């Protein structure tokens, strides 16, 4: 049952990604070259809607949050490395599959490369476990937790920031 939900959720998400035209190398590189902010508009809108949704669910006890631990060394190094790969490939791990679904054949090579990268990581993991992965471990931090304020206050600030950014994008025609 869970598996079918996964497939169904993926189909809905993939449909929206395709219709928003974010499954394109030109759009992804457009964002990284600060020329076309379509993917940022999509992503930030999704983050805003989901932040309201999941916190409402958590507040009324219908869902639990699932916070990833903060590990500064791993997240900074891994994040930068991901960024380099992302700009070379022009798709993300999830959007690679979507891009292939709309006929972008180069995404298949990104997927194969991704499997190779994941396999390499499995080999490197024992060495990482005792080095990079131990640097700057701070546990499961959230912004409202660190600031000691209600999550709704942080969501309101996030919304204001996003709307300001959206206004800028529209004004500049990005």
């Amino acid at each position, binding site marked *: 049952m869970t598996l079918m939900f996964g497939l169904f959720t993926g*189909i809905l998400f993939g449909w929206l990604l395709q219709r928003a035209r974010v499954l394109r*190398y030109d759009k992804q590189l457009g964002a990284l070259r600060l020329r076309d902010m379509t993917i940022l508009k999509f992503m930030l809108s999704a983050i805003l809607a989901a932040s309201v949704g999941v916190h409402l669910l958590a507040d009324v006890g219908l869902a639990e949050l699932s916070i990833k631990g903060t590990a500064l060394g791993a997240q900074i190094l891994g994040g930068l490395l*991901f960024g380099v790969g*992302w700009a070379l490939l*022009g798709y993300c791990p999830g959007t690679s599959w979507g891009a292939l679904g709309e006929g972008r054949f180069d995404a298949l090579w990104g997927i194969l490369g991704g499997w190779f990268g994941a396999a390499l990581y499995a080999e490197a993991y024992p060495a990482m476990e005792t080095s990079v992965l131990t640097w700057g471990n701070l546990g499961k931090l959230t912004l409202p937790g660190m600031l000691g304020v209600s999550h709704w206050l942080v969501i309101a600030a996030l919304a204001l920031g996003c709307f300001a950014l959206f206004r800028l994008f529209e004004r500049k025609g990005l």
Partner: protein
Amino acid sequence: MRQQDRGMNPYVAGTLAGLVLTLSVLVAGKFFGASTSYVRSAGLVEQVVAPAHVEQSSYFMKYLAKDPGIDWQWMFVLGIFFGAFLASNATDSFRWTDLPDSWRDRFGPSRIKRFGTAFAGGALALFGARLADGCPSGHGLSGVAQLSVSGLVAMACFFAGGLITARILFSGRKS
């Protein structure tokens, strides 16, 4: 066939995607993520070639010991493929392409060059995502929506790495 696919307003599509994520958390208790599925796929492929080696890998076993390898997220990522396939066919925007326009303008018509770069990029991206413990879905969408510090740090670094690399790749280009 339509000449230009005008698509859906990205703000609307994004908001709907956020609602789909909320629904997924409500119904299945699952947040979006994509990069773990690559570990599972790589492990499943490697199991065919070298089963003993996979068995000895503590990283593969973190994921493959609990189930046969196919989980909610693996199906979710497969769903993205089908969703995009259905949507592009329903709107006449499906196209077989192997060279993105801006790539061809910058690097020429060589397929080998594009496929090789895509492969290397995919490998780097996944190595980085596993090190960072998530990709733009897991850290970016799910993480930032939950206001987690890990998500914000990872997201900032994804863009920092991407902006610098894109600038180097396309340096001196106007369009």
